[in-house]
């Protein structure tokens, strides 16, 4: 417990309003039979105290691996981690699992996606909660139980005195997720990771859980990272959003700025592909052509280039760096950012040349043609790789 830094040192950092979390060029690679999976490939960001960062991306974009790497939960022998994760001034990447125990639960905690499997089915929820309260706070059994009941009450579980002696299967999915949140909050962490906390839940329950998280964060002045595939979940509930694609952050901006003026073609495509209730029925969706890249051998240049309607030759060859835009805090990695004259010229050029993903985005192909293009695109990518190797 001593290794998290001295109190006076930390107080000074907090007073000077230094960021709680700094991630510098973090890479998490998995060594597998077919090569190296670059699940997280050079991610950097800082997160201020009490703020919420949303990490958005499709499956395989590396968003979950990123959050678990920051917490140092990924430690299998085939994992290669580079870079720095500075939590309150101390680098976590060099710490062993033993040293990390001083952080888990007390400093940082995580709410996982699936409330059905993240609780032990054969242990009463009360014991699952008191276990680490007793370990970290060194209180007696009865004190820990009283704390657990208080926590259950704070996450709005009715009759907490009764529920504490339930097994997980005696509770609904929403209630189990509340228990998971209570467990995560038990030792008063300063930093909370919520990894798709509502994906397995119904829409009404999702709304309850998201509002509960927001309330708890405000009450406890926690810093939060919310990982999700759903732009709707993070829209009104985060201060900043980072959009990930193929292991990299492709755009990062304050939430309002991102929705008002998205610059990366992938962010735009992601938003456009979602059906919205504000649109009339049978509105044609702007599907993204192709599918997410293979992380063992990602496409050369910009990893979104094979699916991007604006892609030019440069995009296939040279990888764009994450650079700052005009608005404060807005960064994006694109050679032809949306809204720029270069972008419009690229669009016109591709449209005239009949580039399939551009035609698809312009709504000039039927769905089946779009899908057949998917196959051709996949073939194209493998050709590029062959040429590159």
């Amino acid at each position, binding site marked *: 417990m001593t290794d998290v830094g001295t109190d006076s040192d930390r107080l000074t950092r907090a007073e000077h309003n230094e960021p709680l979390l700094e991630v510098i060029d973090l890479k998490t690679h998995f060594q597998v039979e077919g090569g190296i999976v670059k699940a997280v490939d050079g991610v950097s960001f800082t997160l201020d105290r009490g703020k919420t960062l949303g990490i958005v991306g*499709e*499956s395989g974009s590396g968003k979950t691996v990123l959050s678990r790497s920051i917490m140092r939960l990924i430690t299998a022998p085939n994992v290669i981690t580079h870079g720095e994760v500075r939590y309150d001034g101390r680098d976590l990447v060099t710490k062993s699992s033993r040293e990390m125990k001083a952080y888990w639960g007390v400093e940082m905690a995580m709410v996982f996606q699936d409330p059905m499997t993240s609780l032990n089915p054969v242990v009463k929820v009360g014991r699952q909660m008191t276990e680490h309260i007793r370990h970290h706070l060194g209180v007696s059994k009865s004190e820990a139980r009283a704390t657990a009941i208080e926590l259950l009450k704070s996450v*709005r579980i009715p009759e907490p005195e009764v529920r504490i002696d339930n097994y997980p299967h005696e509770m*609904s*999915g*929403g*209630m189990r997720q509340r228990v998971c949140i209570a467990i995560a909050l038990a030792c008063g962490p300063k930093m909370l990771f919520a990894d798709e906390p509502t994906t397995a839940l*119904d*829409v*009404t*329950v*999702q*709304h*309850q859980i*998201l*509002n509960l998280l*927001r309330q708890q964060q405000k009450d406890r002045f926690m810093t939060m990272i919310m990982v999700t*595939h*759903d*732009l*709707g*979940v993070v*829209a*009104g*509930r985060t201060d900043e959003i980072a959009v990930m694609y193929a292991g990299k952050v492709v755009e990062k901006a304050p*939430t*309002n700025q991102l*929705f008002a003026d998205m610059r990366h073609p992938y962010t735009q*495509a*992601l*938003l456009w*592909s*979602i*059906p*919205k*209730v*504000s*649109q*009339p*029925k*049978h*509105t*044609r*969706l*702007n*599907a*993204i052509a192709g*599918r*997410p890249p293979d992380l063992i051998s990602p496409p050369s240049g910009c990893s979104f280039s094979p699916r991007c309607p604006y892609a030019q030759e440069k995009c296939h060859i040279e990888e764009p760096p994450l650079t700052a835009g005009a608005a404060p805090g807005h960064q994006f990695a694109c050679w032809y950012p949306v809204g720029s004259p270069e972008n419009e010229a690229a669009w016109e050029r591709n449209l005239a040349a009949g580039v399939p993903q551009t035609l698809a985005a312009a709504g000039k192909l*039927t*769905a*089946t043609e*779009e*899908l*057949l293009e*998917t*196959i051709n695109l996949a073939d194209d990518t493998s050709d590029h790789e062959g040429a590159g190797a």
Partner: protein
Amino acid sequence: MAGSGKAHLRDEADTILRVEDLNVEFPAGRGRTVYAVSGISFDIAKGETLGLVGESGCGKSTTGKAILQLPRPTSGSVRVKGNDLAAMDPESMRQARTGVQMIFQDPISSLNPRRMIGDIVAEPLAVWGPHDEDKQWPIVANMLDAVGIDPDVARYKRSHEFSGGQCQRISIARALVMEPELIICDEPVSALDVSVQAQILNMLEDLKAQYGLTLVFIAHDLAVVKNISDRVAVMYLGKMCEISESNELYDNPAHPYTALLLGSIPVPDPMANIDDVLGDEGELPSPLAPPSGCRFRTRCPLADEMCARVEPQMRRVSDDHYVACHHPLVSADPVGDPSSEVTISL
């Protein structure tokens, strides 16, 4: 519904499917019964897409399967083009059912991992003919092509060589190969990424136009359902709350439960209101012992003594918009048919 009633049913001549008083109950051991679907009625016109929405456990998938007699409903009729599947003997039902096909939620587990794609898609033909394999392949190839899968590449591959979106397209090809008129889609896109989801939804719209299909689209995502459906039926705990033309339902929800669902959707707009909506706090009651009267009353902010006693009947709000609620959020006609008896359940 919270209620029953058939005021919303249309003239049978125009409909391809008409379900009346459908009940599905399952034994739950120790003499208890799960009331999964209780007395719902609906119909679908040819070429229409009906969306079925509701939270998990509301009976929407059970309803979809009951149309296919999987298993046979406890009571009620399921008439496909006038023929009641529920009343037929097993063999004639099996034959009549070929015109109705199903697409399941999980695309990977709904394909046999040990069989080749060409055989999986040809399986319905192997049962119903043509039995000659040389005649089957052109039909299969044609269907795979229609869903954007290269037939010659896919023929001898197995499902693990395809992505989730591709597997779902193969499942759709398998359903289409019998040239069905009606397809039940049970959460066909909920296991897919958003970019792939849009591809499949666009494709379903195109196939529907191309083959003159009628769809029942079951999903929990209200935005997806609105996008694809002509009409939407909202279910709660085995009952139907509200049925309406889609745009009308989302613009003017009449049932408090519909309003709760719509208020809970996460909207990709930072300015959208995310505060608590009415009725937000409650939990779904057990279908082993559903509440008396209106089943939604335990969570409903407008519930009163009448809701506990009398089950609401379907009443007309406007053309093609019906609601089963004693206190609808928009004005509705009084319960239409005076001869319709008022049920007091439980």
